[in-house]
């Protein structure tokens, strides 16, 4: 008898516990939490981590200087773009958006055209012959 009562109580408790949300209309959230990384933040984080890896690989002498500069420039551009996208997603117009867009576009174009300075990694304006940051000849131009 006790067994029967005990068993029924367990069964009842379990059923009530499981069914309560449906019957009483209790809802679990299905939204993203404020503390979660948003897509843009995740992108930013990946870009920053990539930068860190490049720095580390260079320090550990696993990357050639030339590769280091070009990778660094590439990731810096990506990190900037990710930062920008993140700012925009958060609704704050942290930096002058148009200026930044223009700058990113310039860096990207610079990367395509090979206007990244080999010596310091600075991304120069398309068509530059000398690096605006350090004065060295820019590779693409110098090669001509």
């Amino acid at each position, binding site marked *: 008898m006790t*067994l029967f009562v*005990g*068993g029924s109580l*367990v*069964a009842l408790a*379990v*059923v009530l*516990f*499981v*069914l*309560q*949300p*449906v019957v009483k*209309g*209790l*809802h*679990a*959230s*299905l*939204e*993203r*939490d*404020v*503390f*979660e*990384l948003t*897509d843009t*933040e*995740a992108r930013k984080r*990946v870009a920053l*981590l*990539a930068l*860190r*890896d*490049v720095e*580390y*690989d260079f*320090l*550990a*002498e*696993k*990357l*050639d200087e030339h*590769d280091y500069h070009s*990778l660094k420039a590439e990731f810096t551009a990506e990190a900037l773009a990710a930062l920008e996208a993140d700012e925009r997603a958060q609704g704050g117009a942290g930096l002058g958006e148009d200026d930044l867009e223009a700058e990113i576009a310039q860096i990207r174009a610079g990367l395509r055209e090979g206007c990244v300075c080999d010596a310091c990694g600075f991304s120069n304006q398309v068509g530059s012959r000398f690096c605006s940051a350090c004065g060295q000849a820019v590779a693409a131009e110098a090669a001509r």
Partner: protein
Amino acid sequence: MIILGEFALWIALPVAVWGMALGFMGGRTQRGDLVLSAERGIYAVFFLLILASLGVSAAFLGDKFEYWYVASYSNRELELFYKVTGLWAGQRGSLLFWALILGFFSSICVFQNRDKNREFMPYVAGVLQGVLLFFIIVLLFADVNPFERLAFTPANGQGLNPQLQNYWMTIHPPTLYLGFTAFTIPFAFAVAALLNGRLDARWIQLTRRWILTSWLFLSIGIIFGMRWAYEELGWGGYWFWDPVENASLLPWLTATAFLHSIQIQEKRGMLRVWNMSLVLLTFLLTIFATFLTRSGLIDSVHSFAQELKIAYIFLGFMGSLLAGCVVLILYRLPKLRSDNRIESFLSRESAFLFNNLMLLGFAFAVFWGTIFPLVAEGVTGEKISVGPPFFEKVNFPIGLVLLALAGIGPAIAWRRATKRNLKKNFTIPMGVLLAVGTGLWVTGARHPLALVTWSLCAFVLTIIGIEFWKGTRARARIEGEGYALALMHLVARDRRRWGGYIVHVAMVMIYFAFAGAAYYVEERFHVLPGDTVEVRSPFGHTYKLTYEGLSVSLGKGQRNLLWQAIATVSVQQDGKQKPLMTTEKRMYVTGDLPMTEVGIRSSVREDLYLILSALDDMEGAVRADSNAQGIDLQVLIKPLISWIWYGGIMLAVGTFVALWPSVDRRRVALEGRTETASQPAMAAAE
């Protein structure tokens, strides 16, 4: 309590069905109430599984031999400790125990994510509940119910196999089960990602800790099993490619591959399909491992035929999982494609890919070697056994390539490496490799496999050492810190990288020990009391062993013991007296043949391993006849074997470093912001 336990198992069935259905429905319709109910279902099933397990334990502790499971794995004389661990001593209890651990992990997972990662949770709850449901179905309908009653109540049980009455054996299976079941969580998140379409690296980041936890438990579970075999099986080996061992190695291999390839997805967004396939494969292999070890399949296809029901249920489950996941992956294929390519053949990405291929090749060879005898027996009816030679021939070369990659990988840059910096990074390690190889050759180590393995070990260690050194030096310079502090901060800033490298060092230690096998010494002597034998160690020293005599005790000491014959041996190493050693024969009430307990003396260099292989006159010895003291004594010298266990500890340390949670700075910052924002409001309210 026992009947309540049985009852709980039956209630768990509809609850699991309900929970699974609501999880998937809630995810599809985005209804929060359904999802909450599904999540509560997980807690409820866990609670019911606890009741069921307590029921089984109560049956063990109360010597309820009317239950088939208790009667088969216990008896009145069994020590209390083994009655408690009886829950996982046999197939039926193990399946329940497996479900119990899965219920535990599932509940932790649901609780952890009660207010985050909500996009994933409906499907995660559905998948977890589905797997739980599968085990409940097996328990209830596959003739393996631990609560099954016999038609009569035997006066006593059959007792536990004496070989299982060992400390390692009580912790080895649970550790492996923890590893197997923990992998269900990454699998559930992967399926959830396929269903909700969020196919970036998010599901990987969320489950990284689970993956590492699972991997850690699998690794130490395997090592515990090796330790048990080494201590208890009494022949001095720790691995013999037996199907049960292989079954635990398979998911470990694919999980290791997965741990490496997910890094490429996180960093480069590549290999998405590959990672999905690996997570599915690993999960299937954990189920396969239970299937293989707990369905009676391995003994023989014929004994297996008597347990067709459980086999059909397992095969059906694995088949439908495979089909379901393949369909899902195909459906999501367009979204799974990556826009990145591996830029250079000389890059860490390609080293990782190569490592993946090697690990999978290894796994395939093990799988085939395990399954082939069963297939062959099924087809031809003849029993063929695939022994260690097959596995060694195929897997030794792959193993060596993997060892080399453990060093090559860390020394190559992501994305691009050039010949010039490869030369720079590999000159010193290659030099060390050659120097160690030559040194060993000169000192007389000529076994080719050992020579190659040890040289490669030196190569990998050098690379990892240089990595640590360069990182510390750079940090010390940049931050102006002392070297010790710089090293600590270095590791703290990128625990995954450095934890991983520590695990590589652990693998080196284990390989180092494996190669010692080339220099095992094994001799067998017939000795009478007072006889002295000499054995030479490969390290050059000599052991003088004097057999002091046999002492027999009847039915004393451990319960279930009929008699125990202890041979005492005094040991001199190069003339220096060492502590006495003993090796035993034990006869248990429950067995027909006496079991051997070996004597082991471990040191950093080598183990001295004594086996009492035979008594000249067993009956005489038991009667304490002084003329029946002659024995066969096997003396084994096992160089470097302790390094396997040291490696295991190192592996755990490395994994802990990688697992250790870091402070979520972002969360702290966000919380700070909400707090400061709410303060003025509160002040205003006051």
